[in-house]
């Protein structure tokens, strides 16, 4: 495995998500299925957040769609390693379209934590940043620690190409539980993006 991975600190998903949200203003955030959006919810709901309740692997494609529709808004798509593995082809689509306002954050704990902590097929074998780079996303990096993560997030806010930040995380479950109301989630998100006004 890549030496950068071995030298990367194991961090906590909720802590990193909270650090990310603290830096944001009106940027859109897409939370992938399971713990990823549970921690996004627990970090404090904001109207620019979208929470996935299924469709595993589609946080990056949904983020891409938002980024293509609103090129002047930064879009953060948060995804787990297991989810990313379900839709690796999406990395090439994003690399081909090059939306500079899309930032992908990949939480890599090497396990399907929510289903019983089974290891993913990539655990200990694959380097997700090397995969992303190979898919054509040159601006893909491992965050070494929390400080480095915050620096990379700040940098991504005015990046000129899509950014992928991967972080190694521990085996802790999500902190909160998203309210499972898909229509309200979608409607609030559309309000948050200025597409609609409340009735």
């Amino acid at each position, binding site marked *: 495995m890549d030496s950068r991975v071995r030298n990367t600190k194991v961090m906590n998903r909720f802590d990193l998500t909270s650090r990310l949200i603290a830096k944001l203003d009106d940027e*859109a955030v*897409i939370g992938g299925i399971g713990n990823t959006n549970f921690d996004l919810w627990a970090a404090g709901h904001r109207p620019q957040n*979208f929470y*996935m*309740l*299924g*469709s*595993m*692997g*589609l*946080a*990056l*494609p*949904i*983020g*891409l*769609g*938002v*980024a*293509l*529709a*609103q090129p002047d*808004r930064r879009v953060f798509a948060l995804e787990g390693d297991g989810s990313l593995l379900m*839709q*690796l*082809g*999406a990395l*090439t*689509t994003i690399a*081909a*379209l090059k939306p500079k306002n899309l930032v992908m954050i990949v939480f890599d704990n090497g396990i399907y934590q929510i289903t019983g902590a089974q290891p993913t097929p990539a655990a200990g074998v694959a380097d997700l940043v090397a995969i992303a780079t190979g898919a054509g996303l040159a601006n893909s990096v491992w965050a070494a620690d929390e400080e480095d993560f915050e620096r990379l997030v700040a940098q991504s806010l005015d990046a000129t190409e899509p950014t992928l930040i991967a972080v190694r995380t521990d085996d802790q479950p999500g902190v909160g539980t998203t309210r499972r109301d*898909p*229509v309200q*989630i*979608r409607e609030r*998100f*559309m309000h948050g*993006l*200025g*597409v609609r006004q409340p009735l």
Partner: protein
Amino acid sequence: MAIVEQPTPPQTSHDKAPTERSWHAIVLQTLKRNDINLIPYVPDRVLTPLIRSLHADPFFTTFATAREEEAVGVLAGAWMAGRRGALLMQTSGFATLANVLASLAVPYQIPLIMFVSERGTLGEFNYGQALVCRTMRPVLDSLALEHHTITRLDELEFIADRSIKQAVTTQAPVALILNPLLTGGKVFDK
């Protein structure tokens, strides 16, 4: 007794008069009229003239995705952020979508507009395509999704235009199935 006028036989792409618009020109114009400009697709031989003309028209952002469900994610995100799109695929591609329809498009009320080039019927030469085609309408019906099978050139514009407007206003997905009677389909060559 008055002479009853003979009904016009269905027109297909190979017997249409040269002055008539092609099925793909009608689809393109209908998309444009409804301000649908984001077109992810997974390619299909029959859809090729449509895909080519979409790529050639700068009104549209037309691009291939690696999988059909990825395109559904893109269109859901784009819709929520204020941009309309449509997905082009073939029958076997639709067969990969049950999970994303049931867990994203339907429960979140996304007006997902799908054009499906129908393989597996009217001269299919690949048994696998014929089998997968039989799963398409049961999946659509099981989710109570609106779908139309378009066989006639003279009905295409009406069905496509009305279905797109219905999808948007009712916030519900729609599948428009382009039958070989409309497109000519794909026939055995080698």
